[in-house]
């Protein structure tokens, strides 16, 4: 207390200097805010070096995959859906327009107007041509486009919907962070179209980037709006504009300085950190409300402002210090979470809380000292009618909590039991698209497109054959060279052994190419006989190389085919595309389109030459999205209709079961990639991490309570309201059927931090009062005067202050708004209603402890 007292006396002695310092802090750190950089990439929920994330990145590089924006063109009015000249012409126009947008990977754009049609064209003739190289003008042209699309299993269900009402254009983009800009450019193109088509833009990158844009807007609207409402509420309670400006200033300095510090230190503002202002605002105000509340109550009695402040802070310094420390500890515990943005969030909220505490105990006293005498005098005379009403209401409740303590306890226990049931029903799930309200255009597009198509969410199933499994036996070549020496009298073995020695340690992927090149250059210098022999060596080498092209062999592709069939039948996958589909389709078209040839050719050479034909198109690179050029890894592109983690998880389990029944071939690995899968990975890490953080901070807070109250029983009591609140809040989430997602997970720390505040204040004052009065009913009577008023005012200010969040189009903000109110109400209620009865049961212990 002596340090605290010194600080307070300093701020009372030099109020102007202190104001200046606070102003400098605000301006100095706040000046960093314009350097803000927004990050909405859920991938960043995982550390950059996280294994699954690295693999996802490798898959994207290996298979040249890009993030996709999906543009849907839907015609529900025309009898033939989108298959009419007008609709297809618009698809054509739109495609040409999208091609020219900066940031679009033009050569990878997937639309009826950019793909090839490979068709038999009379006996023995095969045709490679653009499917739609100009807008069709006749019904016959439309029909031929339609039948070509329907015949191609790679495109059917992907480019056109099975009901023929919709066409999808897949727009690959270089950089996810440009997706909102590109989506807006596409919307501008669409705005010029008239006609009966509807247009929808979807895809995870758009959802994520649009979220960022909305988030930025919300930071500019929601946080200040919350500030305004808190301000009005305080005005209502205290009726003194000049007085309540001070907590607002404290809140603004806290938020400005904390965000400035975060941005200045080079951290990006992620969805989590964008909520820092919203979290800090109430926390910063809470302590100030305690001070003002008590100041307003005491000043009319004491009459001297300096003496009043000293008295107020004597009461409040210790509980405020501890509430700040516990709240900070609650948030700082998030630093243990395995998710970088959550760590940043936790640490900076903790910093903000401590800063708010410092400012509150220095700035507010200094501010009060600087107020003019006239204003303070007015405060003295102000009849606090509103305060009176709340006061008399609370005063009436006080004794009731004592007399009805047992029924109240039973009711609380029942509520707890119900909450536990709710918790058992909690469904851990997330989907960035669901971060928008259900009538947001992104959610609408998501619904419409996933109704018509195989799905706009993608997951990649990657099969890789290990290098060790590559056959590299050189014996046939040795035999050949030995024969050459015997029969033709030339010994090439020293040269061959030299090649073998220098290439032995190379990976299978490049070993053969290097050996072949070495033989070729020897061949160039060799005489005719030797060249002839080298040629045979080359032949054997190439045979070995062919065998190393694992996913070009019929047996490997048959495994993929069976897996794909099973996935399709499981109903968990809307549509899947793989190398097998390409090979089967092209094979059929090479065989005059006869359905019986819709199968894999029987030899690796047959498959290789089928792919050679496929590559003789306008899009020779397409095949490399499905198989690595060394044919030692292949990817199944799965389209999912839902991006929910639960659905993705069910799919991975389904595949695990399949692998039990149909084990992978020797040396082959199966791994998942894709944004939908990555979301599952970080979600699981988060749930685990949050649970650990919650338990960790619970323990820390409990230890701090023991330190503060030096009583095991009081420490346990202090933990009671927050335990009830957390249990109830999570029970409520389970009962309401609300998915446990990222924002919900973070609420646990907020709950812990905020609800312990009330019990600290309440218990601390109870102990002091009991020591003074030595009688329970009298103590409770006093407790339900000023202390209960401060707690209730705080709960109301915070709860109502955050209601504007409910108006946000972003669900995480709604969630925080709603649960903040629920947390405040529950913990205020639990503190005021349950603690008096429980305190009385331990009255003697309390007294004993206080006296020592």
């Amino acid at each position, binding site marked *: 207390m002596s340090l605290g007292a010194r600080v307070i006396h300093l701020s009372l002695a030099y109020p102007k200097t202190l104001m200046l310092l606070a102003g400098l802090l605000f301006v100095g750190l706040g000046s960093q805010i314009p350097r803000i950089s927004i990050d909405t990439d859920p991938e960043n929920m995982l550390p950059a070096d996280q294994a699954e994330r690295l693999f996802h990145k490798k898959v994207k590089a290996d298979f040249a995959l890009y993030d996709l924006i999906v543009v849907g063109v839907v015609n529900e009015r025309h009898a033939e859906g989108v298959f009419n000249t007008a609709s297809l012409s618009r698809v054509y126009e739109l495609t040409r327009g999208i091609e020219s947008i900066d940031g679009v990977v033009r050569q990878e754009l997937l639309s009826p107007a950019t793909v090839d049609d490979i068709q038999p064209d009379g006996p023995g003739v095969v045709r490679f041509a653009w499917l739609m190289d100009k807008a069709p003008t006749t019904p016959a042209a439309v029909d031929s486009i339609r039948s070509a699309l329907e015949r191609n299993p790679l495109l059917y269900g992907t480019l056109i919907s099975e009901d023929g009402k919709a066409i999808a254009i897949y727009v690959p983009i270089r950089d996810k962070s440009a997706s909102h800009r590109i989506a807006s450019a596409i919307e501008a193109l669409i705005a010029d179209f008239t006609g009966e088509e509807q247009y929808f833009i979807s895809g995870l990158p758009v959802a994520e980037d649009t979220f960022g844009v909305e988030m930025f807007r919300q930071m500019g609207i929601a946080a200040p709006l919350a500030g305004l409402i808190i301000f009005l509420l305080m005005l209502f309670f205290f009726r003194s504009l000049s007085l309540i400006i001070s907590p607002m200033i404290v809140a603004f300095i806290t938020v400005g300085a904390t965000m400035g510090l975060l941005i200045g230190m080079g951290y990006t503002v992620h969805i989590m950190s964008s909520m820092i202002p919203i979290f800090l605002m109430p926390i910063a105000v809470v302590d100030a409300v305690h001070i003002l509340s008590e100041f307003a109550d005491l000043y009319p009695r004491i009459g001297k402002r300096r003496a009043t402040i000293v008295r107020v802070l004597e009461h409040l310094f210790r509980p405020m210090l501890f509430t700040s420390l516990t709240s900070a500890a609650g948030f700082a515990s998030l630093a243990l979470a395995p998710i970088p943005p959550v760590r940043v969030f936790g640490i900076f909220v903790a910093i903000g809380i401590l800063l708010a505490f410092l400012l509150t105990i220095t700035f507010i006293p200094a501010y009060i000292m600087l107020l003019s005498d006239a204003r303070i005098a007015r405060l003295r005379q102000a009849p606090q009618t509103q305060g009176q009403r709340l006061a008399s209401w609370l005063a009436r409740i006080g004794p009731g909590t004592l007399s009805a303590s047992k029924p109240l306890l039973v009711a609380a226990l029942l509520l707890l039991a119900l909450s536990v049931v709710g918790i058992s029903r909690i469904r851990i799930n997330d989907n960035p698209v669901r971060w928008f309200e259900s009538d947001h255009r992104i959610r609408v597009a998501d619904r419409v497109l996933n109704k018509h198509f195989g799905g706009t969410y993608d997951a990649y199933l990657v099969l890789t054959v290990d290098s060790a499994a590559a056959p590299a036996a050189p014996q046939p070549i040795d035999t050949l060279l030995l024969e050459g020496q015997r029969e033709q009298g030339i010994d090439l073995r020293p040269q061959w052994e030299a090649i073998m020695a220098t290439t032995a340690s190379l990976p299978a992927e490049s070993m053969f190419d290097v050996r072949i090149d070495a033989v070729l250059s020897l061949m160039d210098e060799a005489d005719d006989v030797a060249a002839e022999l080298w040629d045979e060596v080359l032949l054997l080498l190439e045979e070995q190389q062919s065998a190393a092209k694992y996913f070009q062999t019929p047996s490997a592709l048959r495994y993929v085919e069976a897996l794909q069939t099973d996935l399709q039948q499981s109903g968990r996958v809307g549509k899947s595309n793989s190398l097998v589909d390409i090979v089967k389709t092209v094979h059929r078209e090479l065989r005059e389109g006869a359905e019986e040839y819709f199968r894999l050719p029987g030899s690796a*050479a047959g498959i290789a*030459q089928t792919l050679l034909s496929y590559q003789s198109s306008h899009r*020779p690179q397409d095949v490399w999205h499905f198989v690595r050029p060394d044919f030692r890894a292949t990817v199944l592109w799965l389209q999912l209709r839902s991006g929910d983690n639960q659905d993705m998880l069910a799919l991975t389990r389904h595949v695990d079961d399949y692998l039990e029944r149909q084990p992978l071939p020797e040396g082959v690995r199966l791994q998942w990639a894709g944004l939908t899968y990555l979301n599952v990975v970080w979600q699981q890490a988060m749930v685990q991490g949050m649970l650990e953080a919650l338990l960790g901070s619970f323990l820390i807070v409990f230890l701090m309570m023991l330190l503060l109250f030096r009583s095991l029983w009081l420490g346990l009591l202090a933990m009671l309201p927050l335990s009830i609140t957390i249990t109830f809040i999570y029970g409520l989430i389970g009962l309401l059927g609300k998915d446990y997602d990222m924002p919900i997970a973070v609420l646990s720390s907020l709950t812990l931090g905020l609800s312990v505040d009330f019990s600290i204040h309440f218990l601390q004052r109870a102990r002091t009062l009991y020591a003074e009065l030595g009688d329970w009913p009298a103590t409770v009577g006093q407790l339900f005067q000023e202390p209960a008023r401060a707690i209730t005012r705080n709960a109301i200010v915070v709860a109502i202050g955050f209601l504007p969040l409910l108006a946000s189009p972003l669900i995480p903000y709604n969630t925080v708004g709603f649960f903040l109110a629920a947390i405040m109400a529950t913990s205020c209620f639990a503190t005021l209603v349950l603690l008096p009865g429980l305190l009385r049961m331990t009255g003697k212990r309390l007294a004993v402890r206080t006296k020592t």
Partner: protein
Amino acid sequence: MLRIVSILFFLICSLGVDRIEGSAPKGGEADAIVGKANLAAYYAGTDGRARVRMTITDAQGRERVRQFTILRRDINDGGDQEYLLHFSRPADLRGTVFLVNKHVARDDDRWLYLPGLDLVKRIAAGDKRTSFVGSDFFYEDVSGRGVEEDHHELIETSSEYYVVKNTPIDPGTVEFSSWTAWIDKQSYLPRKMEYLDNTGKVYRRIEALEVRNVGAYPTVSKMKVSDLRSGTYTVSEFRKIEYDLNFPADVFSERSLRNPPRQWLRGR
């Protein structure tokens, strides 16, 4: 008939400049230069052969090699021609044959033989600006782009090059809006060609990286096609270039698809 683009498979049989008649071009200058370039690049000797090693490098730097032997025979100079391409590498493409009967007056006849499927396919007339066996070369780079398909304009004459801008007469049939050729003033071999898309950006480039004299014929022995959008490029190296081998006509018959003319492919 300008077939500048198709130098890839023709340069092996490039005519010596000395065989091109006439002095410095004057009226219809661009057309005359383009005509000479066509002859320089594609009509050398009566026939020719080369081993071609094609290295396709993708944006990630991964290489794939394709190797084939190309035979060419002129029916008449500056007119119809025949080509046979026989693949030897990679092993899974060995024996794949591509046969072209190029016609000046009508569409070319093209066949593909896929030994792994034992399948002879005629490739329908139509768009020839598709990938040649997955490389950055186009089929049109093999079978030629007609002179009459573009409007030619001499936009610059430097000490080394004639720079000719070519604009398609029917823009609907091609993916470029124009292309520019840098034609060597000495040999009339195009040294560089750049293709512009509808936004005026160069998206495709062909370069002659190495020119050698094969007998009397200046010949491009190494050339590179770059797809600037996807970041892939293909380098073709020509070895064992020979001219005037007097191939019999039946070397280029449909029969050769299934039964490649080994003695003519191999040579020595």
